[in-house]
């Protein structure tokens, strides 16, 4: 089969502001795609366009092979879950679930059957006769998911569904959404600004900035091989360390030291000509203690701040005048003020062109 959802040259302008710029996006059937980006990047706008809640300025949207660019939301074969739950407050849970089906003119037996199936799946059967005001946040979001579920559609749209919940509930419901996806095998498009949600849920992540998709790939590829500085800095917490340097003849010069980077997997051949570069190092790829001697790049550094996080500890230091963080096991964590030797392997790092910010 062809693509489940397909966006072709989609643009959206609010007056003079280009929110989305000729965007192309193909989503396979059964895929879980996460749109990730900082607020204002256009990710929710894209979702609203796919849902048909916003008229597009240019381009086309296909759902299940059908051009739905001019279709009403109800005719697109989608279900949507919102951040604020958007349950109808004066209706009971059962009514909330059945409203759309009643409007569509379904028979009572069919409605009851679908509600029974959805409420069993989401374990909200005991809540069916309550009003939304008498539900907790997590229960409300389950009902909101149920409302999308009973529509029996091919494509689910989630607009930051977990952002209003507290941390514990968020991780519980995250797992539940993943389980739901594995069971239903529907196409799901999920908007979030939470990178943990994106990494854990997605088959593919689309990282957006200013209405343009920066990188669209599997979570581990995005994490390990970010295509540019923006993606590299956005994904990961604490974020990637950036060190200014110069690349020449297979070596990078950092703070007066030369390091061999010939084993680094360059995007184009051997990295091209001599140029200013930015070296990106993940905090967890920094080695301290016994293993440091085997690392190609080594520095002396003084620990400035230590943040114990339980399982691991983040330490802050300075390298070539830039803030540099490293992540280490809590048992072997350094102390504040301690002078230690740190090392990393450039083969695991990312090298970016200092001018354009793209990966080389």
């Amino acid at each position, binding site marked *: 089969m062809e693509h489940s959802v397909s966006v072709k040259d989609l643009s959206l302008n609010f007056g003079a502001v280009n929110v989305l710029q000729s965007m192309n996006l193909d989503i396979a059937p059964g895929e879980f795609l996460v749109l990730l980006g900082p607020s204002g990047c256009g990710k929710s706008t894209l979702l609203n366009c796919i849902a048909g809640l916003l008229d597009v300025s240019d381009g086309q949207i296909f759902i299940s092979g059908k051009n739905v660019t001019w279709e009403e939301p109800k005719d697109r074969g989608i279900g*949507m879950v919102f951040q604020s739950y958007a349950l109808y407050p004066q209706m009971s849970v059962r009514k909330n679930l059945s409203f*759309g089906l009643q409007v569509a003119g379904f028979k009572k037996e069919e409605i009851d059957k679908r509600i029974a199936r959805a409420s069993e799946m989401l374990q909200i059967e005991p809540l069916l006769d309550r009003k939304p005001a008498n539900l907790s946040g997590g229960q409300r979001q389950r009902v909101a998911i149920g409302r999308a579920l009973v529509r029996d559609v091919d494509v689910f749209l989630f607009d930051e569904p977990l952002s209003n919940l507290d941390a514990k509930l968020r991780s519980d419901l995250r797992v539940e959404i993943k389980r739901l996806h594995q069971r239903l095998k529907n196409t799901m498009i999920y908007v979030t600004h939470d990178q943990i949600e994106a990494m854990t849920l997605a088959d593919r992540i689309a990282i957006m900035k200013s209405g343009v998709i920066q990188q669209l790939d599997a979570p581990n590829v995005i994490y390990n091989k970010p295509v540019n500085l923006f993606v590299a800095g956005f994904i990961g917490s604490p974020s990637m360390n950036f060190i200014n340097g110069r690349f020449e003849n297979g070596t990078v010069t950092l703070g007066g030291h030369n390091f061999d980077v010939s084993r680094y997997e360059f995007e184009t051949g051997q990295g091209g000509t001599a140029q200013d570069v930015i070296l990106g190092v993940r905090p967890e790829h920094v080695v301290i203690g016994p293993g440091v001697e085997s690392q190609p790049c080594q520095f002396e550094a003084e620990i400035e701040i230590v943040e114990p996080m339980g399982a691991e500890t983040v330490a802050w230091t300075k390298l070539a005048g830039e803030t540099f963080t490293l992540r280490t096991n809590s048992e072997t964590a350094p102390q504040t003020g301690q002078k230690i030797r740190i090392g990393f392997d450039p083969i695991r790092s990312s090298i970016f062109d200092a001018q354009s910010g793209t990966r080389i």
Partner: protein
Amino acid sequence: MSGAAISTKPAAGAKVVVEPAGPKPRKLTITRIGVYAFLVISAIYFLLPLWVMLVTSFKTMPEIREGYLFNWPREFTFEPWIKAWATACTGRDCNGISPGFWNSVKITVPGVIVSITIAAINGYTLSYWKFRGSEIFFGILMFGAFVPYQVVIYPLIIFMREMGLFATLPGIIIVHTIFGMPILTLLFRNFFASLPEELFKAARIDGAGYWQIFFRIMLPMSVPIAIVAVILQVTGIWNDFLFGTVFAGRENMPMTVQLNNIVTTTTGTREYNVNMAATILAAAVPLAVYFISGKWFVRGIAAGAVKG
């Protein structure tokens, strides 16, 4: 020894220091007494006219002529109330104020229903179904709230005459609907704007149309603001004098106009007791509305209205 007994007592003038714990004790300070006194005096000051009206309405005319304004009636009589309601003369007719009461009901009830229905639809449309120029449309509507009524009365009379609605019941209802529209639309628009927009989006995904979303989602949610609108319109239309005089026509004169006719009748003696009784009767409906719904009213004003 006596010395030991004395030492357990606190020294004269020394304050007993209590360790602060639990709720802070409330003290009646001088300032607080002053504030209460001011409030009580103000309340008495504003209630005094009502008191005079009430006692006067139960007095006989000879007792009123004695001039003791604040005294409790010596001979308690309901005669002025009966006369005010049923037999007082308004111009040539001597049917009391009761026809005016029913006229006011006939104007107020449909006036309130029609104006609030239209305003709710307006507010809903202006919040959720924005069209090209809807902001300008709303701006013009708001401008209407600041136009003095007297300016538009004459053109409106001509308009009503040409439509064949001048001096008719539908005519006066339409006039009240028109003049209530800016403030009521503002009330409903602001209320709907305060609801999460996602609710509207969810209803659209569920496939509900313009009227379905209005009647099944939005209207049931707008009960609090609808109550505020009812209060505003009932008191506004009931208390109206100007439009009633101009547009209602002789057959439909509302209570306020008939009250004026009773009070300003210049033939014979001035029956103060009847005038007072008639005035209280005319004011009874808005007073009752305020007493019953005062809490809602304040809530609604705080919720978004800027002009009461």
